[in-house]
């Protein structure tokens, strides 16, 4: 016998409860809304935009909108150049492109795939006005590259609205002459190596930060508040120093004619001709990044250690554990949450750092983020930058997933 409970005035209890809770629900939504909008605009939209950019390829088809549909009928395996009608349409496309200055962009886009297109398109946009039928001969007369079937294959391939060529480039691959996908030659492989280097260096930096931060955090957590506050200020000092000051300091300290080398030579540990190379290489990147990322490890560790009552260690000792056993078996397991939080924070920051490695990293200390920045700022190859970024994002997500499986993400404690 299921009887609907009703309130005093006869409204079903559930309806009444829902009504009473609606107000507080609305209030909660209203409180969260600004942050949600902010995150959507400042975080999700850019990421989605980036993922989109890494495959987006509308440009060629849009600008060459007369010739590209005709080119689809062309069989690239035939060994013949496309039909005259394709060239005729191309001439019209180029005339229009010259008007709205879009030829150069298409040229630069195709130049990523094969060097030479940039100049070819600039030249052709300029020359298309004076062209007359037969257009095939006119184009080839303008530049013999138009008679190269290989170039036409590239154009046809990249006229599709979406492309995987950025991802191929980001994985050190490309299209072979037969149209299949192949790894780059030894001379042209770079990004996989950098991804790998970025990963292991970030892990190594995380590890170093942990080793260095653990004792400091422990000290901070057992000191009286007044003293620990002072020490925390010292730990946070790198945050308050401008990047340039920091970099200059590192260079002054670490370079071959720098303070540390001078001291080491003065003490006779190494002789003058064998000064240590600690900057403009991997060592420089590691030292500088450990320095700047250390606070991100110290703070979560400190906040977790602060909550561990001293009675745990005392209890362990009273139960007969040596101080070392007590530390390893009782204290450390209770700091796992802080270790996890600090490690994830440092690792994710390390994997994305690019300014510091660029300044002190030299050739062996640069990371994948430096190349993302390079393609964003210098080469303007945003598609490739987006593909590299997306792969990096994927790697981080996979690692995050593994971390969740192994440590458990709800074990993480940020403060």
């Amino acid at each position: 016998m299921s009887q609907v409970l009703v309130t005093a005035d006869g409204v079903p209890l559930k309806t009444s409860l829902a009504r009473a809770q609606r107000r507080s629900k609305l209030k909660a939504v209203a409180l969260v809304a600004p942050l949600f909008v902010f995150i959507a605009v400042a975080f999700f939209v850019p990421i989605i935009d980036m993922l989109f950019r890494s495959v987006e390829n509308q440009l060629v088809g849009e600008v060459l909108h007369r010739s590209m549909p005709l080119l689809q009928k062309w069989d690239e395996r035939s060994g013949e150049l496309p039909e005259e009608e394709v060239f005729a349409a191309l001439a019209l496309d180029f005339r229009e492109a010259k008007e709205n200055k879009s030829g150069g962009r298409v040229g630069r886009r195709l130049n990523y795939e094969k060097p030479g297109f940039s100049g070819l398109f600039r030249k052709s946009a300029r020359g298309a006005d004076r062209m007359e039928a037969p257009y095939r001969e006119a184009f080839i007369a303008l530049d013999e590259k138009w008679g190269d079937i290989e170039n036409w294959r590239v154009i046809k391939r990249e006229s599709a609205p979406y492309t995987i060529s950025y991802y191929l480039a980001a994985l050190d691959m490309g299209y072979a002459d037969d149209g299949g996908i192949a790894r780059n030659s030894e001379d042209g492989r770079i990004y996989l190596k950098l991804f790998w280097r970025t990963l292991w260096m970030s892990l190594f930096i995380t590890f170093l930060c942990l080793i260095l931060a653990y004792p400091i955090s422990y000290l901070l957590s057992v000191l009286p508040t007044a003293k620990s506050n002072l020490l925390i200020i010292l730990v946070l000092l790198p945050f308050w120093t401008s990047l340039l000051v920091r970099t200059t300091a590192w260079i002054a300290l670490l370079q071959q004619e720098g303070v540390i080398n001078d001291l080491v030579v003065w003490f006779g540990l190494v002789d003058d001709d064998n000064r240590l190379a600690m900057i403009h290489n991997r060592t420089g990147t590691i030292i500088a990044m450990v320095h700047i990322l250390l606070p991100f490890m110290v703070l979560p560790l400190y906040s977790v250690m602060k909550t561990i009552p001293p009675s745990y260690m005392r209890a362990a000792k009273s139960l007969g554990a040596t101080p070392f056993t007590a530390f390893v078996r009782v204290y450390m397991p209770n700091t796992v949450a802080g270790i996890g939080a600090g490690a994830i924070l440092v690792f994710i920051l390390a994997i994305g750092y690019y300014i510091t490695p660029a300044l002190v990293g030299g050739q062996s200390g640069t990371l994948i983020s430096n190349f993302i920045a390079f393609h964003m700022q210098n080469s303007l190859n945003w598609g490739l930058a987006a593909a590299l970024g997306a792969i990096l994002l994927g790697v981080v997500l996979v690692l995050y997933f593994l971390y969740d499986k192994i440590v458990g993400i709800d074990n993480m404690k940020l403060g």
Partner: protein
Amino acid sequence: MKFLHTFRRCFLPAVAALLFAGAAHAQTKLTIVSWGGAYTASQQKGYHEPYMRANPNIEIVNDDSGSGALAKLRAMQSTGKVTWDLVDMVAGDAIIACDEGIAVEIDHDKVLASAPDGTPASKDFGDLIVNDCYIPTIVYSTTFGYRTDLVKKKPTKIADVFDLKKIPGKRALEKRPNNNLEWALLADGVKPNKVYKMLGTEKGVKRAFKKLDTIKDQVIWWEKGAQTPQLLADGEVVIGSTYNGRLFSVIEEEKQPVAMMWDWQMFDLDGWIVPKGGKNEAEVMKYLYFATDTQRLADQAKYISYGPARKSSAPLVGKHAELGIEMGPHMPTAPANAKHTLLVDFEFWANNQDDLTERFNAWLAR
């Protein structure tokens, strides 16, 4: 009637002056993007200040974001909000900007002043006008400086840079393929007029990298122009490439024991592009007419040792405004310095920059 006339002549301007007192000096603000430091200072003294004196209604604001200008400009264009009026760029970037359609195309003879003898601007600048958007202002060179006290034998030719026996020690090179590949081939004995043809072939690229391999582990790679002067001053490198103006200030202003090695200096250009979509295009064109005339380009050389891009400016280059030394001999274009020079092949790099940069980075990472 007479009263009315006097009234008009005295009273109305007075009221107007009162009303517009606040805004009287800066009706138009021009934001000009350049490289900052000594270079912007030379533009400020050579171009901006005289122009603002002549046109009190113009206020010029310097923005030092020159190094990332291309990317920022592209981002501005995509959002449709261009806040820059004029941007200083090296020729290679200007070609990209023009290809990308983010720079205004310019009729050089219409917009720019002719030389004092009546030669039209396009002739006066000559083939330094590398595309339809670009107005070159200076010729700078990337060349070498060395520590006079740290080398046993003076380096005299480009091959010495690649000769670890003659010049032992670290050297600083720019972390990009440009110039380095050219120098490698030149040092390897390739004729200057064949350099770019060679670099266009797989064999030539391999040969250049092979030559660079011989000094690879002795190179500190720089990314900012200020690094080599610092590395030289600290004794971290014995020889290094950088822009000749930077070396001029290390030698003449800071009096460091550094000397120039001009052999096969690489000529490059720096100059203006007008961003498409800027709010003050008409004012900018007026400014350009003034700031790129023969006298102004010669004046800039008083403050920095870069050669003016107009042929007609060369005879007018005088003494350094503060140091009082004759600037002529410090110009990369001075006959004694310019025995062996190579002008960057902009067309070549426009086509091959992406590919060779990737090859270069892969080579570095090896």
